[in-house]
């Protein structure tokens, strides 16, 4: 199914839970979705007969622009051999988004990674801990405003 057909289907089912679709981009076309409806949207994408996005191939956290973080979902359907990119913007003032780890189990560790490095909270995630950085690390280093600490546990960090 092509991106515009998918978009119309989603728009019909979720109305203002779905933002605009961007096709004039140098990367794969993508659809904006509402962060507070993303769990239901994900479930729909997976279970709807004509979509069947059975595989979450990647979930990334992004420091999107001055005011927003984002989560990007790369979806693939093995059954129907089409793919889709969904983005959710998350205001930095309130960095929260629904989890999709109950829809695609692959999201579990991906969400932990996004939380660890970019610092959005996934509400409903069963075990939201840091996954790469040490537990006592402060801050989320892929934020553009992250400052490298002078010391970590007594070890000098900058060169």
């Amino acid at each position, binding site marked *: 199914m092509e991106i515009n057909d998918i978009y119309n289907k989603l728009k019909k089912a979720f109305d203002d839970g779905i933002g605009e679709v961007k096709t004039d981009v140098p990367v794969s076309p993508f659809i904006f979705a509402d962060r507070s409806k993303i769990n239901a949207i994900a479930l729909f994408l997976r279970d709807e007969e004509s979509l069947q996005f059975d595989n979450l191939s990647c979930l990334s956290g992004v420091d999107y622009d001055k005011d927003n973080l984002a989560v990007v979902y790369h979806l693939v359907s093995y059954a129907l051999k089409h793919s889709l990119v969904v983005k959710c913007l998350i205001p930095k003032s309130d960095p929260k988004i629904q989890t999709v780890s109950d829809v695609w189990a692959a999201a579990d560790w991906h969400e932990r990674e996004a939380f660890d490095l970019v610092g959005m909270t996934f509400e409903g995630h069963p075990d939201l801990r840091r996954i790469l*950085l*040490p537990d006592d690390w402060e801050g989320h*280093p892929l934020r553009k405003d*992250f400052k*490298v*600490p002078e010391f*970590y*546990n007594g*070890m*000098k*960090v*900058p*060169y």
Partner: protein
Amino acid sequence: MGILNKLDNSVEQFESGNIIITSMDKLLNWSRLSSMWQMFFGLACCAIEMMATSASHYDLDRFGIIPRPSPRHVDIILISGTVTLKMATRIKRLYDEMPGPKYILSMGSCSNCGGPYWEHGYHVLKGIDRVIPVDVYVPGCPPRPEALLEGLIKLQEKIRNQSLAKHTA
């Protein structure tokens, strides 16, 4: 006798018989440098090169270097790759658990000074010598097996010149 060649010319052998005379220093150094057991421990891309050095073509075993899976058994750690801050705490702990005399060979730019991550690696330790003392540095990204072997031979030289009278390691 192969041992005699290795112990160098300060060793004397009785003309008939299997008795040699040497100093305690020499004997200790010889046994240490001929069985530098290595920590079963690899870090990043350099570890691949270390494994290649261990494998049959370069054969670390002929220097008496074999990997051991416990810090209680080992004499050297090859720090073979990128040391993250998280890993550095573990390495420090492993180092502290090793019985002396113990030696560290820092392999590759990463463990020497942070390597490609020297500027933007917020999570990378810029040189393992910030945490534990290093005996030999091997430059390269990654060093070829020949370079690693040369580093190990340098370490053997260092051990050969140790003396009980002087505290080293």
